[in-house]
């Protein structure tokens, strides 16, 4: 004979309860359900109908069991939710970018085909996203389930952010002009006299063939950067237009540098020989140094672009 619905209902409910509770809850539920069924029989209902109705009213045994054992019916409750969400957002920004960049750098130095570099880097980035999301959430679920009393830092008013200055002030303009002038001076000095001094005579660091057009382009980019800072200063705030210009300038500078570097036209071969190769640096190492230089250039430009948009967003807030 198959078990009755009531027996099945009670067994399902008590299996997830702590052992010492099980028999007691079973006996009490048996009596309560039998009482309720009886009351319906007295009103002339069929036994099977009555049993169904009573169990339906009691609802999902999982919910009833959770209610008996005070288990939460959510993954992460209000006590931990915000901490979980803030930490997750922070890590999801940092970790996948580091994983992507790190693997890309490693693969480039290994000298595998560019398709493999892109594939492996994307896989590493996606893997990092999945891992961060899973493990962070798991830790918080465990905290929630174990009823941990860990009190996470209480909020207080000192945590409110001061609206940060976005670099639209006088100091930024002055800094930009000073660095612009120094940059132009260094470049011209490098071309005229040679910036690096090796064995008593000057050797230019930048390629001699860059003069005049390559150098003039670089000087124009520097002038435009200073001009952009002046424009932002004049308006006292970052705008979408300034963020777009900032992005364009960063891209132009990056293509200037990478194109020349790719054609071995950026750095003076004489300087490289004297400074590195003559001191016993191997060609392989030179290649790695080149890749690191590219990564540095790309990283700085990317940060410059992101920074411009962040400042634009901060300034466009009411």
């Amino acid at each position: 004979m198959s078990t009755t619905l009531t027996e099945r209902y009670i067994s399902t409910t008590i299996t997830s309860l702590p052992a010492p509770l099980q028999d007691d809850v079973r006996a009490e539920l048996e009596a309560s359900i039998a009482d309720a069924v009886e009351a319906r029989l007295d009103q002339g209902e069929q036994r099977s109908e009555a049993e169904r109705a009573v169990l339906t009213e009691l609802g999902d045994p999982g919910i009833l069991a959770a209610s008996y054992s005070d288990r939460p019916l959510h993954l992460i409750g209000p006590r931990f939710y915000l901490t979980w969400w803030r930490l997750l957002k922070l890590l999801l920004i940092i970790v996948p970018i580091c994983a992507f960049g790190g693997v890309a750098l490693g693969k480039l130095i290994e000298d595998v085909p560019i398709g493999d570099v892109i594939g492996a880097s994307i896989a590493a980035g996606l893997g990092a996203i999945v891992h961060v999301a899973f493990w962070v959430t798991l830790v918080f679920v465990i905290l929630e389930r174990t009823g941990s009393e860990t009190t996470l830092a209480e909020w207080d008013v000192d945590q409110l952010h001061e609206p940060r200055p976005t670099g639209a002030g006088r100091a930024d303009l002055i800094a930009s002009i000073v660095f612009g002038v120094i940059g132009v001076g260094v470049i011209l000095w490098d071309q005229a006299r040679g910036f690096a001094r090796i064995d008593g005579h000057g050797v230019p660091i930048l390629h001699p063939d860059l003069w005049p057009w390559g150098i003039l382009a670089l000087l124009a980019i520097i002038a435009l950067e200073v001009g952009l800072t002046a424009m932002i200063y004049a308006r006292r705030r970052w705008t979408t237009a300034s963020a777009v210009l900032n992005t364009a300038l960063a891209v132009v500078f990056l293509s200037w540098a990478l194109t020349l570097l790719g054609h071995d036209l950026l750095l003076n071969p004489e300087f490289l020989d004297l400074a590195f190769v003559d001191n016993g640096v191997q060609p392989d190492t030179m290649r790695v140094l080149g890749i690191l230089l590219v990564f540095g250039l790309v990283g700085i430009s990317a940060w410059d672009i992101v920074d411009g948009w962040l400042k634009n967003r901060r300034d466009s807030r009411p």
Partner: protein
Amino acid sequence: MSEPFDTHLQELRRGTVVLACLQLLRTPGYGYALLEQLERRGFATDANTLYPLLRRLEKQGFLTSEWNTEDSRPRKFYVTSEQGLGLAEILRQEWRALASAIASLHETSTGPSTDEEH
């Protein structure tokens, strides 16, 4: 009835079931009988809320329980403890304070107010 309407009503009623149970269980009672009593006296509660609630109150020491095997089927009888009587008294006072606060709120906002004369 609309969804938010229901939610507000439920929230207002939530704590009153505890008070009703503590009061009714001054004389020992068991699950299903208590459920019917509550219903008759206007504290309609679902069985799946009441049964775990009784255990929680017992665990907190506001109720004590005893199995009675003399009836046709063994039943768990609950009775309000000393501590439970104390809790019931505090809840009742709170309820009265709230009731008079709400009543005065109603007077000042609709009836002619004497307070404004000051």
